[in-house]
């Protein structure tokens, strides 16, 4: 860089965050000061990782669950989707995961419709539905290894074991999942959160069937994820003390 200031000076680096709302305005988030002697700062392309939905309408059968729903989640934020039973929370999450198509409106990942940027979006996505996606005849370890292969990530045995230990499944990693209790099955499933590096977590009722300790552990995991620049969208009937959250009421 030819006109780089001499060491000892400070340069101002602006951090931008682009909010993809309807009129696509650019929002200035703040500025940081870096000493020149330090390595040249890179732009924080936070806006590269951003989920937004515009005018979403969901129809199930003859019933319109919601219409004209707008939402946006940026790095370091999470959304708490709330609503009564049957309000369309799961439907919304399935729409966001790209499992079903909205009747109207569209969903964008970093400004691009998720239908176009399909594989980039999926690489950044981790979705947990009501079902655990666990094979009863396979062991916890085998289930995790298969899930990792599906996600296209290499998994090391040590990493998987650590994740299982963290969720209190020590000594049960080689048991077939069918002999585990409902809560333990949930824990096996949640161990994936600790293994997979995904930017966006979409979790449908993640606290179901978990005991107090596991709920705490999961809340910690989500806050760590969000604090590290991740995003999460989740449904739950409980209130959660995780910073950076917003509520979407259906």
């Amino acid at each position, binding site marked *: 860089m030819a006109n780089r200031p001499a060491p000892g000076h400070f340069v101002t680096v602006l951090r931008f965050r682009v909010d993809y709302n309807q009129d696509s305005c650019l929002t200035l988030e703040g500025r940081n000061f870096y000493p020149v002697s330090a390595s040249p700062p890179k732009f924080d392309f936070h806006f590269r990782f951003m989920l937004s939905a515009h005018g979403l309408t969901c129809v199930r059968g003859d019933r319109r669950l919601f219409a004209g729903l707008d939402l946006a989640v940026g790095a370091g934020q999470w959304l708490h989707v709330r609503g009564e039973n049957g309000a369309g929370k799961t439907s919304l999450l399935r729409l966001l995961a790209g499992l079903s198509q909205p009747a109207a409106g569209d969903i964008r990942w970093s400004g691009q419709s998720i239908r176009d940027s399909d*594989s980039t979006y999926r690489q950044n996505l981790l979705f947990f539905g009501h079902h655990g996606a666990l094979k009863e005849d396979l062991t916890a370890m085998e289930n995790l290894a298969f899930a990792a292969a599906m996600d296209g990530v290499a998994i090391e045995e040590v990493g998987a074991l650590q994740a299982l230990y963290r969720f209190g499944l020590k000594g049960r990693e080689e048991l077939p999942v069918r002999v585990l209790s409902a809560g333990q099955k949930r824990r096996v499933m949640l161990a994936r959160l600790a293994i997979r590096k995904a930017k966006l977590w979409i979790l449908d009722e993640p606290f179901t069937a978990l005991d107090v300790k596991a709920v705490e552990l999961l809340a910690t995991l989500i806050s760590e994820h969000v604090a590290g620049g991740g995003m999460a969208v989740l449904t739950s009937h409980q209130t959660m003390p995780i910073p950076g959250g917003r509520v979407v009421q259906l």
Partner: protein
Amino acid sequence: MNAMLAIIRRDLLMVMRRKSEVLTALFFFVIVSSLFPLGIGPEPALLRKIAPGVLWVGALLATMLGLQRMFAADHSDGTLEQMAISPTPLVLLVTGKIVAHWLVSGLPLVLMAPVLGIQFDLDAGALGVLMVALLLGTPLLSLIGAIGAALTLGVRGGGVLLSLLVLPLYVPALIFGAGAVESHIAGLGAGGHLSLLAAILVMAAFFAPWAATAALRIALE
């Protein structure tokens, strides 16, 4: 590609844990094919005549047995959702499922067929043609069956519907597969039939995974 291999490995592993599935199809094939010589009586000329048709119909029905379960378990436990949102294209994963289905319920039939053929007094040449025809034909059955299994996923009473849907589509495989053995026995050479069977297989290998994937996406909605 890794994800596809992982699916094949997982499906085979699950079959190894629960062997009844693969054994059911195989025993069905063995028993159905053995009942004919017992019922018709020891008349070599007649047995030779009906052998290709009986063995092929047996193989056809045996592959039907496991067909309904091809995607059903993955659908009910949420694995199919995870497959659909995997970064690997769903069509590759579906291809993996089809390959696994063939390895479990098609390949054993190919290997068993010569033993059963002896009951029908087929000579070594005819047994060879039978094996080649089944080797080309059973993957075709798995491919076509996958479309039917995906279309009837989550439908109540899907088993009957699946048979109605898939069995007519099996007819070309049956005609050319059994025809290959018949024309070999008649001394006409099996080349023509086998080429046609191979051509249908290539076409199905290209189109069937896409069709099954489209049907699965509808089932997931």
